[in-house]
């Protein structure tokens, strides 16, 4: 079996004032090694909940009712909390949606990166500092020596997302969950960030679960795509097939709306 992550028949719901509302209804998702797997859905489809379930950071009101999340030969759902956190934090990283709020505003960039390395790679302070410079260099930040001493507010949105990408790749994870990583960015910056993620991914061979509502972005970066609709994966295909030959009605609709939306003559 070559799947890094295998989600099977996952049911998940939120209880609110004794009222239970289901969010995921038997989701199946399989992410192959060294692939970028897109997860598409409109808001409310449950895509961030799925990401949180995999990362083990579901809010306390939300419960997993049924199903498995297989990762590295373990079922994350059934694991004791502490062990699960150990395993997940070491091998699953995350690139968040909003780079503006995802770095601690009162701590220097270098320290925030260094802490992760010291925790998971067991590096000492000096080695961690050196590695941080290398990492920043890898994500094409021009002046890493200056940036490590800066605070997040001194960096642009694109730069912050680069730092967060460096953080995600820093401990050589098996899987990276990228939750709408370019939604908050300008289009030109978005293209650079997508390029960076693709480049680092193909260099390291890490698998990426790429969550987005934007079929355009998905088309550009993903190898496989799953379409999530009202708590169910309605379609899972290779990206090439999906865009040429969408099978599910919902996908066809979505693709049609989006294509209509993006009809530019200059690409005809």
């Amino acid at each position, binding site marked *: 079996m070559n799947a890094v992550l295998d989600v099977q028949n996952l049911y998940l719901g939120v209880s609110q004032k004794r009222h239970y509302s289901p969010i995921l209804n038997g989701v199946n998702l399989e992410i192959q090694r060294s692939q970028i797997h897109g997860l598409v859905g409109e808001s409310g489809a449950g895509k961030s909940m799925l990401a949180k379930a995999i990362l083990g950071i579901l809010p306390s009101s939300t419960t997993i009712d049924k199903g498995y999340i297989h990762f590295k030969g373990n079922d994350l759902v059934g694991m004791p909390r502490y062990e699960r*956190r150990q395993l997940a934090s070491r091998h699953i990283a*995350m690139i968040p949606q909003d780079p503006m709020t995802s770095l601690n*505003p*009162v701590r220097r960039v270098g320290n925030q990166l260094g802490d992760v390395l010291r925790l*998971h790679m067991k590096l000492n302070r000096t080695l961690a500092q050196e590695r941080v410079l290398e990492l920043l260099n890898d994500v094409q930040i021009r002046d890493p020596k200056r940036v490590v001493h800066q605070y997040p*507010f001194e960096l642009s949105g694109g730069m912050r997302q680069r730092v967060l990408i460096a953080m995600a790749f820093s401990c050589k994870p098996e899987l990276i969950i990228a939750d709408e990583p370019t939604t908050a960015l300008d289009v030109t910056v978005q293209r650079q960030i997508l390029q960076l993620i693709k480049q680092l991914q193909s260099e390291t061979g890490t698998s990426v679960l790429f969550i987005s509502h934007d079929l355009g972005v998905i088309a550009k970066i993903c190898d496989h795509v799953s379409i999530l609709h009202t708590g169910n994966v309605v379609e899972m295909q290779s990206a090439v097939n999906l865009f040429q030959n969408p099978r599910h009605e919902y996908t066809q609709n979505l693709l049609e709306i989006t294509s209509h939306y993006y009809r530019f003559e200059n690409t005809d």
Partner: protein
Amino acid sequence: MSFPFLLRRLVLVIPTLIGVSIIVFVLLRVVPGDPIMMMIPPGATEDDIDHLRQLYGLDKPILEQYLVWFSEVLKGDFGTSISLRQDVVELILSRLPATIELAVAAMFISVILGTSLALIGTFWSNQWPETIVDGFTGLNQAIPDFLWGLIFILAFGVLWPLLPVSGRIDPRINLDLVSQFYIVESLIRGEFSVFLTLIKHMIMPAIALALPLTAVIARSLKASLRETMTQDYIRMAQVKGFGPWRILIVEALRNAMIPTVALSGVQFNFLLGGTVLIERIFSYPGIGNMSIGAVIDRDLPLIQGLIITFAILFIVTNLVIDMSYRTLNPRVRNE
């Protein structure tokens, strides 16, 4: 900390101090009409009154009176106390260290206690420790410092006499300290028995003063910690696998402290003002106790001097708070 910022803050202090001096002056001279009436002992004759009036320059126009008084103040001369017949500045300086020690101790207690309560309440949120913290802060917001003082006297002075209820130090102890900063000096000299009695005397007034501020800090810090704990960077830290206490203290606390520090400036003023009654209740020989005496004795020069002293204390405290705010918040640090 950049020097221009400090300079700017110091420059801004000047108009505040001038304003304070004007209001003190106007308050005491203009509002009721005749300050002499405040000063005169019962049964004074017309001649006595005229004499006093001349002595204090009260027969001159009000603006001139102010300018004369203010220029003296600038030279460091607040005049002579009427009731104690001593130089006002000397009097205040002899009592000020006691008040400073008390206030600093109270601030220290409230910051430590308030922060701990907030951390406990956040860490075990939705569990019984939070309920206790909430109850404590709610109760404390209803009980002012002077009531705490009285409760302590009742509890630990009367019903269960554990601690001394008046004074700064046991009068039987032979003091040969040179400064008025008893606690600091006794510590430096290593006289721990003296230090211990000093602490025993101070503990009740200090805690009474500290409790209201503790409640404010605990409540505000807990609220902003709660808010901070929902931020994206906290979620990132959880994903990265840092421990919960580490996240709370390293990632969240400093961010949460920024708004709390910003609002605590005013609260420290209430604490400073609280020394007036607390010192009275515990017969603690500081400037607060002295001010009530001065009001009762209608000692005009002393009241003026004391109010200005309190204002300066407040300004200094606020400067310190402002600087810690800037240290905590890198965004404003280098402006």
